[in-house]
């Protein structure tokens, strides 16, 4: 195990703090989560750095359970007195609580696997000067097309331990890095994003070129009439759709409360045969996190299998309620938001984006969605706009940039109309997904740029 070149307190020290916290508690069951780390971020716009920050913070969160009464407290100091005060606050709150008859127990320990490293010195050591040097490269890519660059480059490292009075004692340290840019070429815009635990894998040069090229091609977009069109969506758009499905319905809590589109539909077809979505926090193609917010190992869950509603993710609360075992998807904190799938995959197909465009007589290529939001969760209807490069496809070719359009569409309807699926997967946040070609996507409005 790395010690992050002295940046980390280390497993032993965090275990000592966690055991101390548990020893302060007189509750029937107690869970303590201690996290500590640093995040740094450089923001740039108009090709200059306008904001550049670093923050070092800690979290000490305690769930105390007396009978079936649950109290929660969180602080940000790791001193003995502060940890004791947080434990006492959680117990005080538990005493004032009402019984929760659905609560059974905190989870019991289960072996945790870690398939790949999650901490990279390259990321933890990346300095403000390194970030500025990377931004200089992006600015150069924008200069090549007489454009200017905006965006951010962030890096972070953290270590955390989750321990409970039933023997869970899970420690991990990880790093993260994210690069986002919007390049503006007069009236044209282009976008790129890359995410990795290892900053050396971000390939910022290639991403910046991708954004610059899109910006250059999308100058002087023409007004375009909304309506139903075939669309080619990049992985950025597809991730947005999959994430909304997760938010609206891949949680056992949403099913138990009857507010999920999966409720009452298990074993039934809910979208096209060619759609399979699963969650796997141990797959090296995602940001691997070996355990969840309760220190329970992450399991692979097949959410939608060949278009059929198959399963949802659980934390211990929702699992014990049904006499099942958690799937390792607890979010931590108070737990009120329920479990959540955050490492999803949409099964790849065998097409390239070029082939999708070539097969389209008349359609729209969308680089990115903007400000998407749920309109009707049970019907999976969402709305939003296109952004940063929207193009008309005619006779198998991109012919011109068009102004941004608003869509209002059911995600499951759209996933029933998928004609082609990209062969390459891309990590774009909560999901690792391919590009998609979808028939008859509903655009309901237009904007002025």
């Amino acid at each position, binding site marked *: 195990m790395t010690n992050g070149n002295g940046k980390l307190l280390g497993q032993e020290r965090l275990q000592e703090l966690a055991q101390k916290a548990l020893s302060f508690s007189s509750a029937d069951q107690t869970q303590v989560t201690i996290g500590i780390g640093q*995040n*740094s*971020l*450089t923001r*740039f*716009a*108009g090709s*200059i*750095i*306008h*904001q*550049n*920050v*670093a*923050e*070092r*913070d800690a979290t000490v969160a305690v769930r105390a359970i007396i009978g079936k009464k*649950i109290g*929660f*407290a*969180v*602080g940000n*100091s790791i001193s003995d007195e502060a940890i004791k005060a*947080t434990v006492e*606050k959680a117990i005080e*709150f538990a005493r*004032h609580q*009402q019984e929760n*008859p659905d609560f059974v127990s905190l989870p019991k320990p289960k072996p945790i696997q870690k398939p790949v490293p999650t901490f990279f010195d390259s990321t933890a050591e990346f300095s*403000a000067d390194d970030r*500025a*040097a990377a931004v200089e490269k992006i*600015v150069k890519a924008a200069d090549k097309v007489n454009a200017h660059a*905006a965006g951010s480059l962030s890096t972070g490292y953290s270590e955390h331990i989750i321990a409970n009075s039933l023997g869970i004692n899970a420690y991990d340290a990880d790093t993260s890095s994210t690069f986002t840019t*919007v390049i*503006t070429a007069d009236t044209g815009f282009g976008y790129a994003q890359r995410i990795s635990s290892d900053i050396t894998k971000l390939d910022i040069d290639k991403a910046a070129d991708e954004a610059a090229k899109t910006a250059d091609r999308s100058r002087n977009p023409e007004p375009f009439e909304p309506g139903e069109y075939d669309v080619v969506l990049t992985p950025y758009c597809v991730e947005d759709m999959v994430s909304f499905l997760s938010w609206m319905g891949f949680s056992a809590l949403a099913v138990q*409360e*009857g*507010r999920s589109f999966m409720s009452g539909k298990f074993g039934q077809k809910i979208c096209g045969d060619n759609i399979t979505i699963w969650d796997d926090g141990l797959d090296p193609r995602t940001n691997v996190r070996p355990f969840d917010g309760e220190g329970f190992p992450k399991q692979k869950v097949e959410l939608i299998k060949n278009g059929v509603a198959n399963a949802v993710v659980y934390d211990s609360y929702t699992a014990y309620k049904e006499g099942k075992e958690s799937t390792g998807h607890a979010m931590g*904190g108070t737990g009120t938001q329920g479990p959540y799938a955050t490492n999803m995959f949409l099964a790849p197909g065998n097409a390239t984006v070029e082939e999708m465009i070539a097969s389209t007589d008349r359609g729209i290529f969308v680089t990115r969605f*903007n*400000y*998407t*939001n749920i*309109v*009707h969760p*049970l*019907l999976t*209807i969402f*709305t939003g*706009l296109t952004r940063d490069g929207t193009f008309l496809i005619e006779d198998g070719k991109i012919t011109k940039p068009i102004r*941004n359009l*608003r869509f*209002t569409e059911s995600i499951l*309807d759209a996933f029933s109309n998928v004609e082609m699926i990209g062969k390459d997967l891309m990590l774009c946040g909560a999901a690792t997904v391919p590009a998609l070609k979808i028939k008859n996507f*509903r655009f309901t*409005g237009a*904007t*002025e*740029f």
Partner: protein
Amino acid sequence: MKEFTEKILQKAKDLGASYADVRIIKGANESINIKNGKVDALAAASDYGFGVRVIVNGSWGFASSFTVTDEEAEKVVQQAVSIARASSRLKREDVKLAPVEPAEGHFESEWKINPFDVPLEDKINLLLDADKIMRQQPEIKISEGQMNFWKTDETYASTEGSYIEQVKIESGAGIEATAIEAGEMQRRSYPAFGGDYASRGYEFVEGWNLVDHAESIAKEAAELLKAPQCPSDTRDLILEGSMLALQVHESCGHPIELDRVFGTESSFAGTSFLTTDKLNTFRYGSDKVNIVADATAPGGLGSFSFDDEGVPAQCVDIVKNGIFSGYLSSRETAAQMGWESSGGAMRADGWSRIPIIRMTNINLLPGDWTFDEIIKDTKDGIYAAGVQSWSIDDKRLNFQFGTEVAWEIKDGSLGRMLKNPTYTGITYEFWRGCDAIAGKDEWHLWGVPSCGKGEPMQTARVGHGVAPSRFRNVRIGVMESQSSESEE
């Protein structure tokens, strides 16, 4: 504390900073969430730390830490300075700040009942009582209630000589009833989706009488299950207060942020259609529309004594008789505009984040109608209430909102209930169609506790004062086709 801040500021100057400020913040939060007759979460949070902002070589640097000691302060100042030096590798010109008079003093927001002193049982029972009433309606499958209280102690000091202490208490609550039946799900909330919040004490929560309104929202949610779909049409639209507050937030509050206008939010939240050439010339709304950004509004969730750059709270004209006339600004953006002073809109989400331009209380000033008069005066329209969904483009022009409920208006009377209402438009066309605004008796300053902006993401608590208003010829019912298909 002054000794600590002086050491930091001196260290920053020693390391070459032409300007530095430090904020030390101690925060406390208590939250209670009720769901389906159970206390879903009872949580206490505390938070303490400091952040140092510097200008070195004409560029910004910022660093922060949760360890409030002299030794850590030295490291944090060094880090902020080295970050600023790295920033200066990519600059066009040195950062300039509009001047501000140094200020000293201790300031406290007003509250009658400290919510942290109210027994937990009293607060829990109030929500449980409301919850029980909502669940008496059989169609209600999810009943929820929440309360949130914050106390913030902030010290601000700058190399220009300011030393300001501010203490604030903020409180709020709300309830929601969700009816589910046969593939349909409908929600009603009170007093607003997510609750209503203010810079007040527990008296603000008591004032909403949540228990008295639990039955009516549960009945409305149940009735919505069987209500007809909102038609797809162009009609006059009358908006209820909490929905109009969000309309103001998205279509006025965000586009008047000068950092968006200057492009520094372009890669994330976006820019603004209200470019500087439009200032004092562009017709934003009808001549009935007057909007101010008022950080001095008593009890406003976006009110304060000084912003996080030590600039005193102000009331700034944003739209005067329909003409766009002002922005939310910082010292840096004010200098870029050539103004003599900042409008005082810089706030940070705690000690760990750098201040950015945030809404204060963006208030649509009251008109001279009453709600009843507006309804009576409307031949063919809908009255839409409660926030359901929201979306707007990255220049803040094309928006689409969904509301929890609407009622048809025919020949001056409210009629049948409609489900899944949506409306859409272009910001300035929509506000130019505003021809009736209710008066001050029906005006309320709503508090929105969760405005997200910036990278890393910052959450701000902001306010919007509005009274029910009418907008002519609005496109409604955008999702009619999808919803009807699902019913077949």
